[in-house]
């Protein structure tokens, strides 16, 4: 069961307070009528399923009812950061592959050792982002 930092409530809360809503940053096409059937189908149904860093949309359903984003390692289930709607992630698969793989305490999925739990750095990062 995850421990999730709600960027609006600014607290770590238990997972049952939240609902997962799928992949984050999927914008609805501005002009749906201009989309082909295939493009519209892609928007509706096709989602990434990465091994490693994933950005997800969650809602603090039994809390502030706010939607927000989570950057999560789908291998270790570590939550690396949470950020508000309209903001962009500071940790991405690209940013991690550029840096040292274990920098900032984040292990990128490489089929080896796996991690679980919010690391110090992840928690501090989120807390740091607040202040």
């Amino acid at each position: 069961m995850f421990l999730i930092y709600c960027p609006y409530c600014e607290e770590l809360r238990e997972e049952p307070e939240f609902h997962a809503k799928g992949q984050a940053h999927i914008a609805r096409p501005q002009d749906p009528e201009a989309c082909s059937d295939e493009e519209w189908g892609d928007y509706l149904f096709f989602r990434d399923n990465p091994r490693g860093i994933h950005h997800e949309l969650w809602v603090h359903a039994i809390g502030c009812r706010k939607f927000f984003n989570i950057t999560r390692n789908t291998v270790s289930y570590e939550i690396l950061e949470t950020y508000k709607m309209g903001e962009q992630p500071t940790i991405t698969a690209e940013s991690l592959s550029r840096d040292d793989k274990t920098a900032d305490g984040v292990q990128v999925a490489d089929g080896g050792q796996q991690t679980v739990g919010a690391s110090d750095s992840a928690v501090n990062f989120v807390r740091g982002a607040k202040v």
Partner: protein
Amino acid sequence: MTRNAQQSNRLTQGGRIDRSRPLSFTFNGQTYQGHAGDTLASALLANGVDVVNRSFKYSLPRGIVAAGAEEPNAVVQLGASEASQVPNVRATQQALYEGLVARSTNGWPSVQRDLMGVVGKLGGKLMPPGFYYKTFMAPASLWMTYEKYIRKSAGLGRSSTESDPDIYDHQHRHCDVLVIGAGPAGLVAALAASRSGARVILCDEQEEPGGSLLASRELVDDEPAEKWLSAVMAELSELANVTVLPRTTANGYHDHNFVTLHERRTDHLGGTAPRVDGLRQSRGRMHHVRAGRVILATGAHERPLVYAANDVPGNLLAGAVSTYIRRYGVMPGQKLVLSTSNDHAYRAALDWAEQGKGAGREVVAIVDARANPQGDLVAQVRRLGIRVITGSAVIEAKGTNRVTAARVAKIDLEGFRVTGPVEELSCDTIASSGGYSPVIHLASHTGARPNWNDRILGFVPSLVKGVSAAGGASGTYPLPEVLAEGREAGLQAASSCGFEAANIELPQVDALSEGEACALYQVPHEKTALRAPKQFVDLQNDVTAAGIEIATREGFESIEHVKRYTAMGFGTDQGKLGNINGMAIAARCLKRTIPEVGTTVFRPNYTPVTFGAIAGRHCKALFDPERYTALHHWHVERGAEFEVVGQWMRPWYYPLQRSGGGERESMSEAVARECRAVREKVGILDATTLGKIDIQGADAREFLARIYTNKWEKLAVGKCRYGLMCKDDGMVTDDGVTACLAENHFVMTTTTGGAAAILEWLELWHQTEWPELDVSFTSVTDHWATMTITGPESRRLLAEICDIDLDRDSFKFMDWREGRVADVPARVFRISFTGELTYEINVQAHFAMHVWKTLFSHGEKYGLTPYGTETMHVLRAEKGFIIVGQDTDGSVTPEDLGMQWCVGYDKPFPWIGKRALTRSDTRRENRKQLVGLKPKDPAVVLQEGAQIVFDPKAPIPMPMVGHVTSSYYSPILEAGFALAVVKGGQKRMGETVYLPMADGTTHEAEIVGPIFVDPKGERQNV
């Protein structure tokens, strides 16, 4: 009745049992005596009970092997009464109490004389690994028959057929440091962390804390280890920041340092929880712990050696022998042969020799696989004059219901073969040790793959963030090092939680010099594994070395495949004893190393957990929350039957008492009466449960236009409109009426079950796509009570208690008005879900009962009749009004429902669902469309869900073209009628369709329009 009270294997002194408190218990119908402090296993051994079970597949006699959670054989069914039955209890973990009743899990008619054993012996050679797959899988149609007999012969314990008399509960806990295991490492870790100021939870699965110290030969500060243990426990129990949980198993390690602890609060006291001051105690408790840091001090399990007939009762783990002698004062036999690969196991021989002296018990020999064992313990043994046979191993046990001899021979470890002549040593007990395996199960739950360590010949846990391992759990066995590691883990955990590390002095423990162990798992035999007597790897699932060899030969190279093919580790013990041996054997067969073969994954739970503890208080009335409307009490008094909708308790129908004191009306009678009352006079429904969402903001109207399929820009204040909601895939997801309360203020109604999901849906679009819109949403479902009065007399009834002008021209259909009803403020909506003249009266919930009763005090002369959800369904279906989720299923568009009138294709904003409605698939002809069905036989009420075909003579499988979505008997039509979806149905009016039923009959029905009553909608407009 006590036929065997002498406890022939009980030592006259020693152990942690209380000899002044004898306890009697029953095992397989026979009464025995034990002592307070015994486990069921130690008491059985004390009484010389050799056979405690029959094996799962071959039905061979089995005895106690271990002394803890890893026990594979002594799995019993517990319970003196039917209600208190508990399956799957390990006798080694069950404290003895007065009157305990236990039975073997397997074995019929008894474990001593087992019918299946004959089958096992005869059929043993005929039951290779994969036997079930190979033999019983074809033809597939017969599997059900096979399964019945396989299940019957494979006893797995049984659950009670009666209600559990006990209660269980859950507790949520938070701590800085959770220490799992109260052996030496865990105790020091807890002490170090708590003295540093951290909030600590220390849990241990055993009856008392102490772990290996409870049976340790080591002196701590020159005293028996128990003394130091008591002092530490005394300090920990004094500390306010420490919670000690005995008899508590950490059974699952979940994400983000969430650990579930299963506390058995009263299992050591009796078969059901005793009452305290007349109050029931919770028998088991599940602690949901969120820990800052976790320290795994879970110790290590000894590995048995795999030799021929190693399953005969009397074959024990060396460490278990020591535990039974030192902790329970039980000597599990007379003559011991010890077979070992390491120094550690010599303790068993020393304990046996020291405690058995003078009792006619002896150590026949120690058989050591190493050529030249050296070390302090070896020297001690030699000083006692015990024979040590080097470079050799016990290759086979002799005996049937008890070991009678050990066959010993020189072996070549590298060449995996017997090299010398076989010597047969007469004995009744063989203790074996192939070293220790750290208990990595909890670390494994986190997804971390363990790493092989060549020095300790075992897997050590690879650790995720926030967790550390200390002592045996990390492969560290010498006591001084264990203590030091515990201190380090405790201090580090505390300091990483922000506490300053305290100064902890460790007690003085002399380090023993131990020789290097050798790698020995399966012991070679003169014959090949396939021809030698069975060498068991997994005793609980009867997996043999030969079975693993065959599996690898048949091409199962991945250890996960070997596991599934042989069922190794699939028992309730999850292969705690056998898995590493199994991997080692697979590695040898595949000519790989153990780390190359890898390990299987352990999953929660570590040991079986009772369903009671999992459920906690979430059972019976508390299984799921129930929601009541403000009028619930009235419905109960009126004798309503209820149905659960979402979590709401809604009146289903109100059966009347027949005059003359007979039975109450049946459901169909009540529903017919309620339907007629509405169509002919006036009925009343408690519609409070419909979801109500208050929507406000300058852009509220724009938002509605985007979220609904139809138009909203012109809806005037005082007006209501029905709306249809799609997802962006164009499929209908909800419907309801929304009223314009003011220019920037609306109230939306949703289906009862969809209220929460629709609120989240609105928030999703507002927050993620259109945050620029000025709009906000609030659930007001519980704030307003809704009372629907409907029927031709509803206007006259309402007029008596209402100050609103109800004239048909000033308060039209689909208008709403604010006013006073029964002298309280009310919103009255003239909308209709029955097709009759209807007023929905909304008042603040706390006024509801007053208004409801006032309506009834005025309503009698109009025949006011309460009706429930069943009548509501019949009436709405007669009108062809859909229920989203019943008549739709996520694949139905507004046009499939024939509701084009509710779709604003020309609205300016591309509203949710619009684009998808022009996809090729949604434009397809021949989609399933909503129609009415009129059974040819009016007495027939079609089954909801019944499949529809065009040609009943078509060969099976017939092409199915739709199904019945709603079906009722209409007292108005005096006939059954139905709503259905049928391929191309809207163009098939008047055609006949067929509904073949499971019983072989076929119903005929005519496709008609979905509106059965008042097709022009005149009655609601009067």
